[in-house]
Every structure is written in structure tokens, then in C-alpha cells.
């Protein structure tokens, strides 16, 4: 039992951070955010670079060109993506790797939808994963020009770097579109999607904490760094608590993949991302309210991710339902269920 990333995992995470610093530095984020509407064309060169770096193929077997790694590793690199506010349908393309041609290499852009609502990057996508049926289906949309178009109304997205499309109706299950995914099917992919989205929220929450602490150290008001004020200190302390609670939860969920752990991870990471961005903004005062700072981009992306895959209410219901299966169900690790409790004379 060791919940900490091992050396290889830490190196993988550091590598992804370096790659993003090189290929998607802050200036690129700002270019994308500051561009006049409608947003810039989808950056396919960056997508390919991410593919080459293995972001999408990470979990494919080595024989299929992947790195043969698991969800814990995927979580760590997605934390970095969330930290850098990397745009694009990262989760869907990652899930499509090995199933949709070109996804693993970053040659194809794949988005996903599991219910009517907002779909990200629909026009730029070559394919759409449909996860609203027990089995997984794929629409080949070819960047909006394919024959299997998913009708969606473009909306002006609150997150300036994530174009959104309002999709009111999903296509019915069509067997010949079924993706060749092994047994787990759409439910498994939805859990993975929720987990990897939570990982990005965690990365964002950690980043806004860093930004808050940096600002608190350097911003002088009343003749001293504002980080000497207890109100600021305590705000930052609660940000750390949220981030660390989310971190242990997300990391553990990547190992157990139980419905309960996934929902806890999503719920707590959403909370950490949204509330840390809010606190970071508050701590920056007027500066935080300006477009030129990055803090609002974190807040807006966190609002977006909060709506994706599993919202708070849904997660809470999953977690509540898990409580009602027996007296030891509340205890996280499954092994306890196996025990025979009748001997317990004390209860």
C-alpha cells in the first residue's frame, strides 16, 4: 500500500509538465483566450504533438504503439493538462485511442457525448464517442463535414478556449457503429472520463493555489505582503486542504475504479477547482477581475468540467446509494464486506 506516485510516475508527470511548457506555454493559452470571437481554428499541430508525447496512447499496450501504462499514470498527466488549461477534447480522444483510427497518434480529434447538453469542440472533431447506450458507438463527423453529422447549435462558450455546441438530441443506438470495446462498455468509459476530468480539475485547483500563494507573497498593501494577513493565510490554507483532499481521492479512485470512489473523486475535485479558482480570484482583488489574468480562465474551465460526465447532484446520489447496502458499506475498502460481523459481541 503506497498512495504516493513512485519515481517513474513522478518522472512521467514532470515530463508532461515540461512538454506543455514547451508546446503550450502561457503565451499560447493567452493567444487562444484573447482571440476575437469566434475562437481560433483548432490547433492540430499541437494535437499531433500531444499524440506523439503519448497523451492519448498512454494506456494502449506497447504492441499497439502505446506505453502500456494504467489509469494512475493517465491521471497524473491529465493533472498537468488541467494545470496548463490545455484545450481540446482530451478525455474523449484519450478514450478513443486504439478504437478510433488516428486518435492514439493525435491525428484525429475525437469528442464525446453521454447525454443531451453541451458538446465541446464538435466542429473540429473527426469523430464523436456516443456513450448514452450500454455499448459504445462512434459517429464519424470528419470535422463537421462527415456524413454522420451530430446536429448542434454553436453557443458562445463561457470558457473562451472551449467552443461548445448545444446538442438537444442524440442518435439512437446503431449496431454497425458500435466501437470494438471489450466487456466494460460505455459505463466503464464514463467512469474513466469522470476520473480524467477530475484529474484536470485537481491540476487546476493546484495551479490556482500556487497563483494565490505567489500573489500573497509578492503583493504589497499597507506596507507588507498581503500573505502576512491571517485572512489571506487562512484562505490559502483552505485551498490547500481542498486540493489535498481531492488529490488523495482522485489517486485512490484511479486504483479502485469503483463507482463510489469515482464519484467522490469527481465531486471533491470539482469542488476544489471551482472554489480554489474563486478564492484565488478574491485574493487577487481587482486584478483577479481583469481579463488579462489567468485566474478567470481556470474558473470558467472548472465550471465547464463541473458539468461534464458527472455533476455534483449525480455524484452525491451515487455516494448516497452506496451507503444503503449494509452497515460496513460506508467503509472505503471493499475487503471489509467479506467479513462476518455476527461474531461481534460489542455491537
Amino acid at each position: 500500500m503506497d498512495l504516493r506516485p513512485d519515481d517513474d510516475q513522478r518522472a512521467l508527470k514532470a515530463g508532461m509538465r515540461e512538454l506543455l511548457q514547451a508546446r503550450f506555454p502561457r503565451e499560447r493559452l493567452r493567444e487562444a483566450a484573447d482571440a476575437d470571437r469566434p475562437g481560433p481554428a483548432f490547433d492540430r499541430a499541437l494535437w499531433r504533438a500531444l499524440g506523439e508525447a503519448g497523451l492519448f496512447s498512454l494506456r494502449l499496450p506497447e504492441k499497439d504503439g502505446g506505453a502500456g501504462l494504467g489509469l494512475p499514470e493517465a491521471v497524473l498527466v491529465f493533472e498537468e493538462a488541467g494545470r496548463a488549461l490545455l484545450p481540446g477534447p482530451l478525455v474523449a480522444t484519450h478514450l478513443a485511442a486504439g478504437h478510433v483510427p488516428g486518435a492514439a497518434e493525435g491525428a484525429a480529434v475525437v469528442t464525446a457525448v453521454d447525454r443531451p447538453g453541451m458538446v465541446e469542440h464538435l466542429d473540429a472533431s473527426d469523430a464523436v464517442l456516443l456513450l448514452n447506450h450500454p455499448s459504445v458507438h462512434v459517429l464519424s463527423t470528419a470535422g463537421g463535414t462527415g456524413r454522420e453529422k451530430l446536429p448542434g447549435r454553436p453557443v458562445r462558450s463561457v470558457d473562451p478556449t472551449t467552443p461548445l455546441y448545444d446538442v438537444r438530441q442524440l442518435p439512437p443506438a446503431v449496431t454497425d457503429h458500435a466501437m470494438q470495446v471489450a466487456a466494460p462498455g460505455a459505463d466503464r468509459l464514463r467512469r474513466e472520463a469522470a476520473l480524467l476530468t477530475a484529474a484536470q480539475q485537481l491540476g487546476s485547483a493546484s495551479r490556482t493555489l500556487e497563483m494565490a500563494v505567489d500573489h500573497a507573497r509578492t503583493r504589497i498593501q499597507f506596507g507588507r505582503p498581503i500573505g502576512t494577513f491571517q485572512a489571506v493565510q487562512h484562505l490559502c490554507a483552505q485551498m490547500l486542504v481542498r486540493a489535498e483532499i481531492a488529490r488523495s481521492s482522485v489517486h485512490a479512485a484511479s486504483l479502485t475504479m469503483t463507482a463510489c470512489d469515482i464519484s467522490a473523486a469527481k465531486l471533491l475535485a470539482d469542488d476544489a477547482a471551482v472554489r480554489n479558482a474563486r478564492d484565488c480570484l478574491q485574493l487577487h482583488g481587482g486584478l483577479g477581475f481583469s481579463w488579462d489574468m489567468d485566474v478567470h480562465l481556470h474558473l470558467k474551465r472548472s465550471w465547464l468540467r463541473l458539468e461534464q460526465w458527472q455533476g455534483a447532484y449525480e455524484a452525491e446520489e451515487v455516494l448516497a446509494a452506496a451507503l444503503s447496502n449494509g452497515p460496513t458499506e460506508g467503509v472505503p475498502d471493499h475487503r471489509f464486506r467479506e467479513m462476518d460481523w455476527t461474531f461481534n459481541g460489542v455491537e
Partner: protein
Amino acid sequence: MDLTYSPEEEDFRRCLRAWLRRTLPKLPPKPPPSDWPARRAYDCAWQRALYDAGYAGLHWPVDAGGQGATPTQHLIFLEETELAGAPYVGANFVGLLHAGPTIATEGTAGQRARWLPPILRGEEVWCQGFSEPEAGSDLASLRTRAVRDGDAYVVTGSKIWTSHAQVADWCELLVRTDPAAPRHRGLSWLALPMDAPGVTVRPLRTLAGSTEFAEVFLDDVRIPLAHRIGAENDGWRVTMVTLSFERGTAFAGEVVACCRTLARLAAVAKENGRWEDTALRRRLGRLNADFTALWRLVQANVSEAESSLRTGGDGVPGLGGSVFKLHYSQARQELYDTAADILGPHCLDADHEWTAERLSSLSYTIAAGTSQIQRNIIAERILGLPKGR
């Protein structure tokens, strides 16, 4: 990242379970909550049973009479005993988790031989004399004075929030031996026999109505110099060394207990219809997330402690304890506020177990460092913010 336990650890768990299964049904009934002598006897009998089975001082070093178990084994022990409904450490808390480890680390061979075995066998009970009425969050401002007189210190002052003082044999006492030194520098750590002349114990009633705590008044109490652990005026460091003995497991058993309480809350809510209230149900769901996460945080802290020990470190899991305590104390209060919500008007019945727990949960954001102090620690020591003024 890995949540599986090693074969040795699984073996340890299996043996422990088997032993608990054999042993617990034979335990006598729990004494009434307010009968402190009976509770002492019960807790000590349990400790003796642990001793006989080879579980006493699980996390103590072998050369101190302990089992030298890893933090993970200790975690398994706390998890399994809680799940099995075994007794809590109770009156032996200070001896096993604080005074004992302090003596094991800082005491002389003679001191270790005198004090450690009776703790492990459940023969001598310790209590803690640190806090004072005027020294709460600011412990280093304590005023109880010890003046040398021949081969003894003469100690005068008073201590507060001393649990089990009425039934304790010994008290780990932090006193000021050099009034002229800077606050943290002039303190010493003494072992006070509770039957020494001049010691008066006055029970302190808490808002929960319990009398677990006491004030201890010290009136020219003579304590032999030989009862000092560590060097004179080095008591602050000695005390802090001990705190580091907590290897991320401090509240592990309580988290497991809270998870089970949560399941019982759900069961009661289903019975009385409150489960149909969406808001209440989702609140229970959120608490499930919180306590699941707290359990994961315990595992992460234990992982860190274990890794630190493996690489020759001291096994102190960074400052994750502050993060854990801040969130846990709040979640525990929310747990019992939610319980009150489920009980409706019956939450006003002081005899309901959850009402008592709700009252006692109020101390969690105060005791062992208030939430405010924990936030200071996190801001300044973990996040490196400039020191507040």
C-alpha cells in the same frame, strides 16, 4: 500508487481478525460511561489482553518492548479493531501514544525500564499535564513553575484539560524551570506520580456533561530530579519529538467509525422517511465522499511515513496531519449535525447516542490545536507564506 497490501500485511490482518474473533465475545460488558474506575479497569484489561497476544505497543520500537510494526501494520490494526468493535485505547491513550513514546525516545535506560513495561501491560495509567488556563493555543506561555530543591523539583501551578486524571498513576508534566529564558527555552518534562502530596484533582465538567477531564492543582509538589525526561530546559523539544511519533494514523480508527456511523444514519433515515428528502440524501452522499477521502488521506499520510522510515527518516508524515485534522474535525461536526437533522425533534434527547456525539464533536475544532492554529501552520509551514504579525 498502489492500494494493495503485501502478503505479510495480509497475514497480519488475518491473524488479527482471528484473534479478535476469538477474544471479543469473551470481554466483560462495557462499564457505564461515568464510572471512571471501572472504565480504567476495563481499558487496562483490554490492554493486558493485547499484551498477552503480542499486540501491545504495536508501533513502539522493539527495544522499548514494542512490536516495531510498520505504520501500515498499525493502520491495519486500527482499522480491524474498529471494524470488529473492539474497545478503544481509552485510559491508556496518553501512556501508549504520548508519554510512553517520549520516554522510549528520550529517557535513560533506567527510566525506560521503570515506566515502559507497566504501560504495555496495562498496569499503569498516564495522563497529560500540558495545557493551563492561560496557556491554550499558546502552550509555550505556560506558568507552572518547578524550582530545584536538593534532589527534587518543587512544582507549583495548575493544569487543565487533563483527561483520566482521577484514575491516573502518572502525569507527563510540562513545567517552567527557567523563568528568565525565552518562552520555549525554559521548559522541562517531568513524570509526576499522581499520589504525590500537594496534587489535587478537580473534575471538570464539559458541555457534554462528561467528567473525563480534570483540573490538576500542584501545590509545592516534590518531584525527584530523576523523574525528568531529557535535559533541563529542553522540555519543549522533548514534547515535540513525541508528537512526531504519530505516523499519520492518529484518527484512522475514528474515520472508520465515522464511515460506519454514516451507514447507520442512512439506515435510520430510510426507516423514518427522511431518506426521501433529496437534500438530506445528497448531504449524506457528500459526507460519504468526505470520509472516503479522509480515509484515502490517512493512507497517503501512512504511505509517506512508511517511505520516510524505509529511507532512514523519522517517519513523520510531513505536515499532512494539519490538513487531515482541519478537514476531519469539520466533517465530523457536519456528520453529527446531519444526524440531528435525521433525528428531527429527537435530536434534543440528550440520551441519544448521536446527541452525545454531536456535543463531543464540538471539541474537535478546538482540542490539539484549534482550526485557526492549524490554518496558520499550513499557511506558514507548508505554503511558506510570510509569518503573520
